[in-house]
């Protein structure tokens, strides 16, 4: 349940932002979920609910919006661009699990389909990101 750790991180971030912006209440949290980290959306959503529960004051009416983002890679050597969907057949279950914990581990197990380099950039869809927080003062 590594999703739990990330859910806690999202809630901490929201609470910090609320404090900084002097929000009495947070009404919306927009989260982007990068495909590479392969977050289980259901576990993540239920972890979020549970982590939010004790924060009644600030977060009781918060709407959570989760947007999935496809992962895209770009090779630094030959400039080739490809998607995670095209690459997943290179991975066994254990490797895929390792990337779930630390997305950078993809450099151990994935290669550019064109030139076989491991020197690529994840240009989109790496992991969990808080896109925006809305609330009332």
């Amino acid at each position, binding site marked *: 349940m590594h999703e739990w750790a990330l859910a806690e991180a999202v809630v901490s971030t929201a609470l910090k932002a609320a404090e900084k912006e002097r929000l009495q209440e947070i009404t919306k949290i927009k989260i982007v979920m990068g495909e590479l980290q392969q977050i289980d959306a259901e576990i993540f959503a239920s972890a979020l609910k549970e982590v939010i529960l004790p924060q009644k004051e600030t977060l009781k009416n918060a709407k959570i919006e989760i947007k999935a983002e496809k992962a895209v890679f770009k090779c630094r050597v030959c400039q080739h661009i490809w998607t995670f969907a095209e690459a997943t057949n290179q991975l066994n279950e254990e490797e895929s699990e390792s990337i779930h914990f630390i997305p950078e*581990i993809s450099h151990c197990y994935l290669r550019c389909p064109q030139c076989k380099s491991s020197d690529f950039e994840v240009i989109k869809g790496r992991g969990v990101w808080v896109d925006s927080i809305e609330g009332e003062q």
Partner: protein
Amino acid sequence: MDPRLEIIDERLKEIKRVIAITGGKGGIGKSLVASTLALTLSKSNNYRVGLLDLDFSGPSTDLILGIEGIYPKEEKGIIPPEIYGIRFMSVIYYAQDNPTPLRGIDVSNAIIELLAITRWGRLDFLIVDMPPGIGDATLDTIRLMKKTQFLTLTTPSIVALGTVKKMLAMLKELNLPIIGIIENMRTAKSPSIEGQINGLDVPYLGAIDFDENLENSIGDKNRLLETAFAQRLREILLRAPQFKLNIVSGL
């Protein structure tokens, strides 16, 4: 906003002291000192000790301690497995034996991820084995693990000393706590560096001689603890008030 940055303090909250083993150059014994220090602290005072290997491109504390076949548990995050009384965290759980060709930004991202998901629990000491120099791991340690104290290593070589001086200058400029400097791999012919670091205002903790038998003891923690290297390190720790080490028999 990167949510991971906000949770790291929380993850480190129950750790009393974080000690990073640093040095300007590679191959000067940082990983040996980090591993032996973790073992010694956990054995001597029943301290609760964690060991974090932040050398992602050349993790070696697992090799030094002969750690194999363990894996963290998932429970609202990652719980580092305990071995020889040490909670041990390293990128090897995920990279296995594969090379990890990471660029700076990736190293930094991986460090943030690891710190954000690892639940150390209560620790007296977290020992951090650093890669050489003042690159990403050092900068992220300074940025993210705010309570880190630095234990610096050098060899008697002018080359190592010159670089470590720069690192110390940086730490001093940032007003970061430096436990002191240990001179490693001293030989009969080496001039002592003690005089050469006088002007730095950094405690000189002592010297460890070059130990010909050390290499043969790597991978076996009992033999490692019996080496002259480990005994000498322990003497240095006993003398250094920062570790409050008790004299316990059976070591």
